[in-house]
Structures are given as structure tokens and as C-alpha cells.
């Protein structure tokens, strides 16, 4: 079973306008930058980017390219805006969010991780105590007032809980340190973050890997994401990037 494709263009060839794409990474760590660059070159539009925690803040050039092309319809994240308001006002992405041109939907980070994991496990919805008694429990948190749909709540074992639905993207962009032709992946340190649950959740998971290993070379007990969750693997050069000004 050979899931290796020769280029980023080939890996993302079937992504069409309006797709929902999960983007792995936590700020600068484990962000699939090369796949994002491919998405910019492809110029598909109306995209929903389902993130975990600010991968677009950690990949500034890629975010600005997507915004400049007008490719983003909606972003789902737990922390997608700059913590510095003055810096945020200068960010093209944040300007569009503030203007309502890009929809921005936000969830507590662990809830968001579980939305992906639940999708991967075939669970349509789950109850969580996180956010109960706060604005999180009232409506979906979004900058588009019309989309603030009310939430269901329920008391379980005496604890107020919020009903949250699974999030199943069409595609997931994953960045892994090592992969093999069967799609088995290993991440490096904190770069694992949201990548594994997103790989589980998506209908089509595309992994960029910094090095390709022979099938069998990765000790089965040390595989982080088994190949059954991965449809395509593309080898990419290791990139260095500046994280001093995030």
C-alpha cells in the first residue's frame, strides 16, 4: 500500500472551492506550512479552515497569502487572534474578522480537540462541563451574529454540561516528523498537538513529513498516528522559521 505522492500539487489536487480543511499545529509547532503554500498556489476559495490553536498565527506568511487571495470563508479555532490588540489591528486576517468578511468561530481548546476526536471515533456529539455557566453555554461563539445558534445544556451527575457536536472536516493537513508509505506517522515533541486527532477526524488526511522511512522501520509501538487514518503522504523539506515575533 503506497500512499506517497510525488508533490504537494498532487496531494491536494482534489480540494475544491468550499472545502473544510483541518489545519494541524499549535502556533509555530507542527504546522503543515508546505501544504498551506500549495493551497495558496491553488487559489481554491470559500474555504473553512478548522484549526486547533492558532496555526495561522504561527505561519504568518501562509495566513497572509490565503487572506490576500480571498480564499478563507470561515476559521474555527480556540485562539486565532493576536494577543496584542495593536498587532492584531495590523493583521489582514484580523481586520477581515473584525469587518465580518471572514467568519471566526471559537471554542475552548480541549472542547475543540474532543470535537475532532469524537468525529474520528464516530461519535456525533458529547457533553462537556467546560464553559457551562458562561457565554460558551449560551450560543456558538462567532463574530457573525446570525450564526449564534443556542446551545443545549444538561445537568449530568449534578454538573451542568454543554452539548457539543463532532467536527468532521473534508480534509486534514498534517505535519509529521517521520512517516512511511503506509501513512504511519511520528511527530516530534509538541508538534504532535492537534495533528493526531485531526488525522483521525478527516475524510481525507494528507500528511507532509520531514523524512520518509522504509515501511517496517518505525517500531509499531512508537507509531503516533497509524496509517489507517492517513490517505496521502508527501515528503517536504525541513523548514526553519522565525518565532521571535509571535
Amino acid at each position, binding site marked *: *500500500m503506497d500512499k506517497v505522492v510525488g508533490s504537494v500539487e498532487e496531494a491536494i489536487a482534489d480540494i475544491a472551492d468550499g472545502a473544510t480543511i483541518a489545519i494541524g499545529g499549535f502556533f509555530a509547532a507542527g504546522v503543515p506550512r508546505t501544504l498551506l503554500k500549495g493551497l495558496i498556489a491553488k487559489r481554491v476559495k470559500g474555504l473553512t479552515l478548522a484549526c486547533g490553536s492558532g496555526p495561522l498565527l504561527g505561519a504568518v506568511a501562509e495566513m497572509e497569502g490565503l487572506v490576500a487571495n480571498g480564499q478563507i470563508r470561515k476559521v474555527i479555532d480556540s485562539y486565532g487572534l493576536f494577543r496584542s490588540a495593536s498587532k492584531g489591528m495590523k493583521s489582514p486576517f484580523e481586520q477581515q474578522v473584525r469587518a465580518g468578511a471572514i467568519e471566526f468561530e471559537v471554542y475552548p481548546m480541549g472542547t475543540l480537540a474532543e470535537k475532532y476526536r469524537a468525529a474520528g471515533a464516530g461519535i456525533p456529539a458529547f457533553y462537556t462541563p467546560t464553559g457551562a455557566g458562561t457565554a460558551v453555554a449560551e450560543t456558538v461563539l462567532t463574530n457573525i451574529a446570525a450564526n449564534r445558534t443556542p446551545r443545549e445544556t444538561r445537568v449530568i451527575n449534578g454538573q451542568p454540561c454543554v452539548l457539543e457536536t463532532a467536527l468532521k472536516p473534508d480534509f486534514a493537513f498534517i505535519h509529521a516528523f517521520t512517516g512511511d508509505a503506509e501513512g504511519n506517522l511520528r511527530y516530534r515533541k509538541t508538534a504532535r498537538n492537534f495533528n493526531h486527532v485531526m488525522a483521525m477526524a478527516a475524510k481525507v488526511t494528507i500528511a507532509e513529513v520531514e523524512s520518509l522511512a522504509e515501511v517496517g522501520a518505525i517500531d509499531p509501538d512508537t507509531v503516533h498516528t*497509524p496509517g489507517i487514518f492517513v490517505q496521502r503522504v508527501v515528503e517536504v523539506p525541513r523548514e526553519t522559521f522565525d518565532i521571535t515575533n509571535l
Partner: protein
Amino acid sequence: MTKFEGLPREVIALRVAKEIEDGSYVNLGIGIPTLVSNWLEGRDVILQSELGMLKPSRSTRT
């Protein structure tokens, strides 16, 4: 006329193997399902043992 006692197990397994497309991941339960693996030699199929291990080796087949 002897009473029909059903197809031989290996024939059932062979018929099931024909249902499996290349590129599939296949969880094999214990019993006749395990015999299906005998008919998948050389096919581009990844098997999963009943308890979840992917790519069980030949020695684990019954």
C-alpha cells in the same frame, strides 16, 4: 440424496476474499473470517486482528 451441509469453510472464505478491494483495511474476526487471509496472498490489503493490531504476521493466522 445426502443432506446439504453447507459450503466448505475455505470456499466461504474464498468468496468473501473476492469482496475485498485493493487498498482496504480489513478487520478479521476469529473463525471463518480468519480464513479469509489465506486467500489474500499478494493482495494490497492491510489486515487487522480482532484485538486491533494492524498487519498481523502469518504466524498469527489460524
